[in-house]
């Protein structure tokens, strides 16, 4: 395996060869290579096919701005489409494939598109696929997606993990080129907490690609020396392979660290990437600049690339794109390229310089005032057709072209909060405007300071002033003596004449012709130009193309570039994987899981669990032989109603309310009265929202004059607590009331059924009398259990049976459930889950989440009279609104199917027995339904217009989703024990 285009030197390790495969063929590169540099060294210039026309393409750049050399990296479940070969770090065994071609990169069937290019011009989709509309999704889009496009997904789950993390610093320096390094050293020596982030895997930026000396060192050597000092400073954190992707509010920056992308497989336990949230007091953008091309006819052939990229490949990676290279330039950079190539022994066929006053060169023939009219070569450039200053044509042979059109400062981060760049005439480029993110300053070529000397000194100076603004004194480092050439450039955006197939945006296949067409069709705003032509979209976001498009648009409109303006940039700076945004929150780790105190015991019992918010609750407890969930649930309901059942109700929210005004506070937040509740008693409470709609319900038990325990529904525990704090702090700040959540502190079990008291008498210590007389319905109190453990007992019932809730400190919850089961054996005690709980509450007609659904009032719930008019409480005034109190207001009632073999389905709407079924004839809806094993029938509760006066009426319960209509009878919602005798027994 020969690396035909490999040179000597560079920042690669020639002693460490690495094997890799591209499109199935094996090659060799060296440690320090990128995939692109290694392929070029192997004389491979063709690396991809273009998006729309499937034109052969090679790398244009040597960095993250790359539009062309986009490949699929790795195989199998780690296959990653649309990866830039120019930034993919080479590792041993790397496998990559080209994309958007069939059957092969060299012979791509879809290249036929290029022949029909006149049909695919700007706006093609909008104009062509207009009609018929139904064809878009089924016909056009699939075809377009197949033909045009980027890489393919593996369709397998990503096997790798991603981390998230948080960092803090005084000064975040974005980019470790000459400006960033001198800023970091300045700030580091001053003792400031510095984060220096660099997207490349080595620091130095252009210092690694240019041959200018810094003092008596090469740029790369100075970078290494500076890095060594920075590494010795504990207050400086150097983060390579880390791209700052966005500038967010108040000094927060997002950064992606590619921890393992340069390895075949991440180390065990290590993430592939980490998303860092960086809190900075000040930030300094030293992101450098991006070179821009000059458009000419067929300027997209493989081998035609940017001059700076050619210097990077030759100097840093010791890989020349070809043995003979032509140079096309409008500024002095082209001459620098010629010098570097000659020094490396690469032949320069000509320097084609658009400037009539171009300097001469000792390295090659300079064609002053000339321009490239066209190029030849099917899968790679072979020859240029050059128009000389006198109008004659000269053919220049070459296998690569180094194009230099000037540099655009990387202003992206300064636009992330809608800052607008301003035009800088001297360098013919946009520079950061004055309205960038607060706390962000810019140095080096990102600020339009284009010389190495300028970058070094502005980096140091900017660090000093950024630190000064946060009270840290720093002294600018002595910067080494470095190149300080002025920018000598003649703005030149594209070569006129020809067919207009001069590429501006190579990633989106947008040509000069497309921009002209957009102008002709009256698109005047740059934003419209962008969207109509797709210029500047996709993975490179127009880093190399936007300026050319703007310049042509300005020319056509007869305006200056600053008058036309520019589009601005949004995060992320470079493409960011979805995986890293998700972090570790995938699969079962998507949200934390809350386990009840009886969880481990319930697992042992083989319980089936259901997610209720973050909680896992036992849904039912299947017994051997039960094959259908209904068998388990029916059994649990019947056993509880017959004898006794136990259910973990810890998930209900509990709020400890204390203070001398605690009772008055509850009076304000509940619509019913609480001030007169006696100590040792519990009361049902309904909370309204201020608009009069029911918010939540629960109970409040008074443990002492100044101490209540409030319960909330499981779902609303957090929001009710928040609301209570709002009432306490914002509405009644001088009430003596203190709140704290105790949901997790107590393991609470409902013990329900006719034998519940008998069971609890075996648990509650004998000195506490829990007889019906001493501890009647709605009593509450502090007791001890099992020989002295502190506990709370509430005589409340959700099932309608004689029932209690017993609470013990959570660590004893596991022991408590085991104790209850053991003590309950003689009563055939059963554990019951949320399904049986739901069945029993529907049988009893108790409202729950389905009824407290954010649209219902106390009146709807049949509790209209509970809303006290004698006191101020949240929601009482607006609950009186006329619209909420119409004569035919919805009222909660029960429903039974006329034929008890038919099911009642929650969500069904209620319609008259005959007549039309539509929204106008809607009478209400069913909110909850269940099979009642006691009644041996499906039952439901719901809301019916004027429901209280319609008992006995037959209606249709219509469920269009399930295509089902059931005749139901309106009944009382209290199916079981309507007089409430059982719970008072």
């Amino acid at each position, binding site marked *: 395996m020969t690396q035909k285009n490999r040179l000597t030197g560079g920042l690669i390790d020639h002693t460490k060869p690495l094997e890799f495969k591209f499109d199935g063929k094996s090659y060799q590169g060296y440690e320090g290579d990128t995939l692109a540099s290694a392929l070029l060294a192997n004389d491979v210039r063709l690396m991809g096919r273009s998006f729309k026309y499937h034109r052969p393409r090679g790398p244009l750049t040597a960095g993250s701005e790359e539009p062309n050399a986009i490949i699929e990296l790795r195989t199998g479940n780690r296959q990653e489409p649309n990866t830039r070969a120019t930034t993919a770090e080479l590792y041993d065994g790397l496998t990559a494939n080209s994309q958007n071609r069939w059957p092969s990169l060299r012979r791509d069937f879809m290249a036929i598109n290029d022949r029909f290019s006149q049909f695919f011009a700007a706006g093609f989709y909008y104009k062509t696929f207009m009609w018929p509309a139904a064809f878009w999704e089924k016909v056009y889009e699939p075809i377009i997606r197949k033909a045009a496009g980027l890489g393919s997904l593996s369709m397998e789950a990503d096997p790798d993990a991603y981390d998230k993390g948080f960092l803090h610093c005084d000064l975040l320096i974005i980019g470790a080129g000459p400006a960033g390094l001198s800023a970091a050293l300045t700030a580091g020596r001053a003792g400031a907490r510095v984060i220096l982030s660099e997207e490349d895997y080595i620091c130095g930026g252009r210092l690694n690609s240019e041959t200018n000396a810094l003092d008596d060192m090469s740029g790369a050597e100075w970078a290494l020396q500076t890095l060594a000092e920075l590494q010795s400073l504990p207050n400086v954190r150097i983060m390579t392979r880390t791209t700052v992707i966005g500038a967010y*509010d108040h000094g927060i920056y997002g950064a992606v660290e590619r921890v393992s992308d340069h390895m075949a497989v991440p180390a065990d336990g290590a993430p592939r990437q980490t998303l860092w949230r960086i809190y900075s007091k000040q930030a300094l953008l030293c992101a450098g600049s991006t070179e821009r091309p000059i458009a000419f006819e067929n300027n997209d052939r493989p081998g035609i690339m940017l001059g700076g990229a050619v210097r990077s490949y030759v100097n840093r990676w010791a890989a020349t794109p070809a043995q003979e290279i032509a140079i096309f330039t409008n500024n002095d950079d082209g001459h620098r390229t010629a010098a570097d190539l000659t020094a490396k022994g690469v032949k320069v066929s000509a320097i084609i310089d658009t400037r009539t006053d171009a300097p001469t060169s000792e390295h090659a023939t300079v064609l002053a005032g000339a321009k490239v009219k066209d190029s030849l070569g099917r899968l790679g450039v072979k020859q240029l057709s050059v128009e000389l200053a006198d109008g004659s044509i000269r053919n220049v042979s070459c296998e690569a072209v180094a194009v230099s059109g000037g540099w655009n400062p990387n202003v992206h981060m300064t636009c992330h909060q809608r800052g607008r760049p301003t035009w800088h005439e001297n360098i013919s480029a946009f520079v950061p405007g004055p309205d960038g993110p607060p706390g962000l300053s810019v140095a080096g070529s990102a600020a339009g300071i284009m010389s190495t000397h300028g970058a070094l000194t502005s980096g140091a100076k900017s660090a000093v002033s950024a630190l000064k603004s946060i009270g840290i004194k720093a002294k600018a480092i002595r910067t080494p003596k470095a190149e300080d050439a002025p920018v000598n450039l003649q703005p030149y955006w594209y070569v006129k004449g020809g067919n207009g197939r001069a590429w501006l945006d190579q990633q989106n296949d947008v040509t000069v012709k497309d921009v002209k067409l957009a102008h002709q069709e009256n698109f005047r705003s740059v934003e419209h130009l962008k969207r109509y032509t797709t210029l500047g979209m996709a993975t490179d976001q127009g880093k190399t193309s936007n300026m050319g498009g703007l310049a042509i648009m300005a020319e056509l409109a007869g305006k200056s570039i600053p008058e036309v303006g520019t589009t601005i940039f949004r995060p992320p700076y470079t493409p960011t994987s979805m995986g890293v945004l998700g972090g570790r929150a995938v699969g079962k780790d998507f949200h934390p899981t809350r386990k009840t105190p009886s969880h481990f015991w319930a697992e042992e019992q083989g319980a089936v669990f259901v997610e209720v918010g973050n909680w896992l609750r036992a849904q039912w407890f299947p017994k051997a032989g039960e094959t259908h969930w209904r068998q388990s649930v029916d059994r649990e309901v019947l056993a509880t109603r017959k004898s006794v059942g136990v259910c973990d109700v810890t998930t209900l929210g509990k709020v400890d309310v204390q203070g001398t005004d605690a009772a008055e506070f509850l009076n304000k937040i509940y619509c019913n009265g609480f001030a007169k509740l006696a100590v040792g008693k519990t009361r049902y409470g309904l909370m309204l929202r201020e608009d009069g709609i029911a918010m939540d319900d629960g109970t409040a038990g008074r443990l002492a004059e100044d101490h209540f325990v409030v319960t909330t529904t499981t779902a609303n525990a957090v929001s009710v607590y928040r609301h209570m704090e709002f009432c306490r702090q*914002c509405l009644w700040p001088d009430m003596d009331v203190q709140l704290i959540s105790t949901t997790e502190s107590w393991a609470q079990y409902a013990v329900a059924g006719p034998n519940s008291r008998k069971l609890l008498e075996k648990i509650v210590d004998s000195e506490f009398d829990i007889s019906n007389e001493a501890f009647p319905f709605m009593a509450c109190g502090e007791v001890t259990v099992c020989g002295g453990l502190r506990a709370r007992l509430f005589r409340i019932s959700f099932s309608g049976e004689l029932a209690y809730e017993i609470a013990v400190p959570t660590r004893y919850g596991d022991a408590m459930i085991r104790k209850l089961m053991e003590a309950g054996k003689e009563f055939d005690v059963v554990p019951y889950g949320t399904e049986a709980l739901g069945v029993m509450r529907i049988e009893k007609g108790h409202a729950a989440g389905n009824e407290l659904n954010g649209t219902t009032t106390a009146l709807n719930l049949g509790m209209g009279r509970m809303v006290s008019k004698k006191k101020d409480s949240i929601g009482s005034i607006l609950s009186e609104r006329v619209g909420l109190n119409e004569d035919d207001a919805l009222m909660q009632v029960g429903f039974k199917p006329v034929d008890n073999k038919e099911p009642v389905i929650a969500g069904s709407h209620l319609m008259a027995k005959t007549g039309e079924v539509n929204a106008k004839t809607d009478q209400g809806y069913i909110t909850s339904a269940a099979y009642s094993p006691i009644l041996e029938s499906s039952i439901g509760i719901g809301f019916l217009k004027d429901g209280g006066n319609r008992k006995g009426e037959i209606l249709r319960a219509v469920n269009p989703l399930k295509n089902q209509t059931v005749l139901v009878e309106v009944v009382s919602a209290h199916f079981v024990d309507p007089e409430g005798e059982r719970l008072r027994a």
Partner: protein
Amino acid sequence: MIINHPILGPRDAQEFTYLGDASLINRPDWQADDAAKQFYDYQYLRDNPAGEHRELWFHEQGDRSWLVVTRNTVTHEISKVELASDVARKEGRSK
């Protein structure tokens, strides 16, 4: 965003939940003659300025303080942060 908590200093907005216009502190008198109208206005009529806005934030994952944050809704600049209980007292609320 960073909210400069009056007790705790700068805190990430992720720790907070947002409620809305700080005028929610000014809950009307339930016994006023036109209580119904006042409550209607209180509940439904809010300004929605593009610019400076006083709003209520709850430090739910922090010290459980309700704060009144004066924030520019266009630039996100936060010019003032106060404890809501202090604001409420200043505006005459008590029990």
